């Protein structure tokens, strides 16, 4: 198809394509130059500041980077475990909250009121306070015996993020046009089947970027379980810092956290792009 097309290109189109190519080259050149200039400015700014050698030694020391890397990496595994279980918990609790919040049945009014109260409370409370409340409050009740700090941390993170995710999902559910519901119900699908097969799949597509945003935020907040004494990446870095009086291990933890989030960010971008291409058709704008 492309071969026959290229044979019949008119002089006007060839000229237009040439113009577009030149325009593209020009914008690429401009962006490269401006990036280099900005980078140079940052480097020069740091070099001329008198305290830079000290800061570099405290935060970006190659020696301490290598030294602390293995223990911090080991701690990261705990963060990933917390993230894994919290994600499952948030998905279940968040969906439940969203479904209760969009329900209209008068029977469910008490639940609806409770869900509203829950999302309001959980989204308002500072994460660290909630962590303390659950991490130290629940063991203080003396009914469950000894629970590992990581488990309590996971529960706190789940409760907090379910409120945010529930609200995102609610918006997504409500965004699906009512005619889709009518169409599904008229096929004879039950209310539950309609939500599962028609509403949720479409809602998830609409809110995927917002959900991914919450996911990455949660991944970062998984580091807060260190405040409960669980030895995760941040805690491991903290221990190293206490031993060496050098802050580089924190940078190590940050780099690891960033690296973990990159695949999810790329996955999200790829997924939304694919959906857009398939279901909306692609144009130049």
């Amino acid at each position, binding site marked *: 198809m492309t071969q026959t097309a290229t044979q019949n290109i008119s002089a006007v189109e060839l000229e237009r394509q040439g113009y577009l190519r030149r325009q593209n080259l020009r914008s690429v050149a401009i962006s490269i130059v401006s990036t280099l200039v900005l980078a140079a400015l940052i480097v020069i700014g740091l070099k001329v500041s008198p305290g830079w050698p000290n800061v570099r030694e405290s935060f970006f020391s190659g020696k301490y980077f290598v030294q602390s890397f293995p223990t911090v990496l080991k701690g990261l595994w705990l963060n990933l475990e917390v993230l894994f279980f919290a994600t499952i918990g948030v998905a279940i609790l968040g969906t439940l909250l969203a479904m209760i919040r969009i329900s209209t049945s008068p029977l469910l009014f008490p639940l609806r009121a409770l869900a509203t109260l829950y999302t309001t409370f959980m989204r308002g409370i500072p994460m660290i306070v909630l962590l303390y409340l659950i991490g130290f409050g629940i063991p203080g009740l003396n009914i469950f015996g000894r629970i590992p700090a990581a488990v309590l941390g996971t529960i706190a993170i789940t409760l907090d993020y379910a409120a945010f995710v529930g609200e995102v999902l609610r918006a997504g559910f409500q965004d699906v046009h009512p*005619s*889709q519901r*009518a*169409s*599904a*119900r*008229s*096929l*004879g*699908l*039950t209310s539950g*089947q309609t939500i599962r*097969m*028609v509403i949720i*799949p*479409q809602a998830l*597509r609409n809110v995927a970027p917002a959900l991914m945003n919450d996911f990455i935020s949660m991944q970062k907040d998984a580091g807060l379980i260190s405040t409960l004494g669980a030895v995760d990446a941040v805690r491991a870095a903290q221990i190293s810092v206490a031993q060496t009086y050098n802050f580089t291990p924190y940078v190590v933890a940050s780099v690891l956290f960033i690296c973990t989030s990159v695949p999810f960010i790329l996955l999200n971008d790829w997924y939304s792009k694919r959906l857009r291409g*398939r*279901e*909306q*058709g692609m144009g130049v704008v």
Partner: protein
Amino acid sequence: MSENGNQSDQSVSASNPESQAPMSENNTQTQGQGAPAQSQRQDTQTVGVTTTSANIIKPVLHLDNVKKTYRNGKVENQVLKGISFDVNPHEVVALLGPSGSGKSTLMKCINLLERVDDGQIWLNGTDITDPRVNADKSRARIGVVFQQFNLFPHMSVIKNVTLGAIKVHHWPKEKAEAKAHELLQRIGMDAKAKAYPDQLSGGQQQRVAIARALMTDPELLLLDEITSALDPMLVGEVLEMVTELKERGTTILMATHEMEFAHHAADRVVLLRQGVIAENGTPKEVMEESQNPDTREFFSHFREV
């Protein structure tokens, strides 16, 4: 149902069949309309049974004094003021009427997407407005095609068409897909089986929507202004499909603005005006011979053509 305020005079006239009679002189052939609703309710055995020239025909759809009022705060809007008519087997009935006459509301009530305020809707002998009758099962017996197609954008054409058969009627996937391919072939869309709705033209989407509604051989097919969202070039291909369905004996109730099509394809025309049935008869009787000035006015543009 309490009717109050400015609605009262309208509801009285609507609930009394006698007072409607002068409005529609051509109703002589109308089945069910003239029969007292009360006697039918008492005897479930004979409900909806209509006698025409000594043959007993059981209507597929029997509407008995259907009423619907929308309430928005204190504002009440009675959209359907007692609608009664039948759709007989293999019949194509065109539901005509100006915008706001209640066509769409009536379609939604028949499909149980809206609850009626009063009256009954019988589908082949079942009162589907009875709350003890499973509404999901009743909906599954009726095929619906909407003005805006309403295909599921996240599913391919074949998934759209087979969803109801697999999930509601519990057909095996192979059987459903075989039937779907057969239907798609018939409408010339089999090559697009794996495409997604947004990759199709409006006319193609609407044909797929019709295929979806036909999958499980519904007892009644409701077509709700299915050509209104299509540009004139695409209207033809969809109406052609409806003609083919008529030839195959599908029972169809279609709300439409396509007067030309109603005139040559429908067996009967029901004209709604402000929530009541103004006319009910053959296309010729209603569209050409009616003496009612409002009816003549409504069809004046059509008659000039």
